[in-house]
């Protein structure tokens, strides 16, 4: 299972890649708090196979930085409780998750995995997605070069 924060959820929804993500991971989850941060209209676009989980608020995160919200902390709690990887493009969240021993990935790595597993079928399509992802997260020349290596 993998849990998405709202950077990856928003990016993959905009890119219309959530169905492709299901081919990579049969179980994809978000927290109820993450869901509630979107408008009702947007919430209705989330596929029903994405699991909505409730976090255990009794898990103490007193050392969490001010740069994170309560919804961010809800996915940290879920990751700790269920030993799940978090997908996030938010650096403060990634840094704190790593500090808590949670495994992390992001949109960029997910996109390359979709291509390498032939879920994104062509290189042209992959490059189009990479370019479009730059609307959501900046990709340096160095990282773009890595992404384009076969």
């Amino acid at each position: 299972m993998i849990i998405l924060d709202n950077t990856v959820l928003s990016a993959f929804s905009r890119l219309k890649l959530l169905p492709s993500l299901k081919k990579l991971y049969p179980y994809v989850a978000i927290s109820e708090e993450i869901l509630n941060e979107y408008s009702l209209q947007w919430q209705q676009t989330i596929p029903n196979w994405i699991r909505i989980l409730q976090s255990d608020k009794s898990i103490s995160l007193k050392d969490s930085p001010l740069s994170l919200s309560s919804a961010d902390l809800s996915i940290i709690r879920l990751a700790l409780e269920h030993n799940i990887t978090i997908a996030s493009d938010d650096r403060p969240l990634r840094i704190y998750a790593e500090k808590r021993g949670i495994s992390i990935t992001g949109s960029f790595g997910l996109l390359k995995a979709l291509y390498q597993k032939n879920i994104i079928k062509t290189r042209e399509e992959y490059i189009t997605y990479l370019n479009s992802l730059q609307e959501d997260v900046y990709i340096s020349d160095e990282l773009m070069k890595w992404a384009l290596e076969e």
Partner: protein
Amino acid sequence: MTEKINIKLPVDLLELTGLSYESLEEKSLLIWVLELYSEGKITLSKAANLVHMKVDKFLSEFKKRHLKHIGGPVTIRDVQKDFDTIQDLTKDQ
């Protein structure tokens, strides 16, 4: 309730923008928060919370200004680690 501070802005901004005092205050806050999010200093969720917006609405404000979000992995080593994590999770599929 979040504790607040007062900041001073030139009064000319009221006339130049045509905004009311309250709207100018809201807009100033939005600009600050967009910059903090753009620089990767706060999360998307925290940014939307600070300006009392839904995440989808905040993202549309962000994108209409063509800002870049500094986020995700920093180095090749970081992104390779992200990728290896995915490979490990999907190797049996």
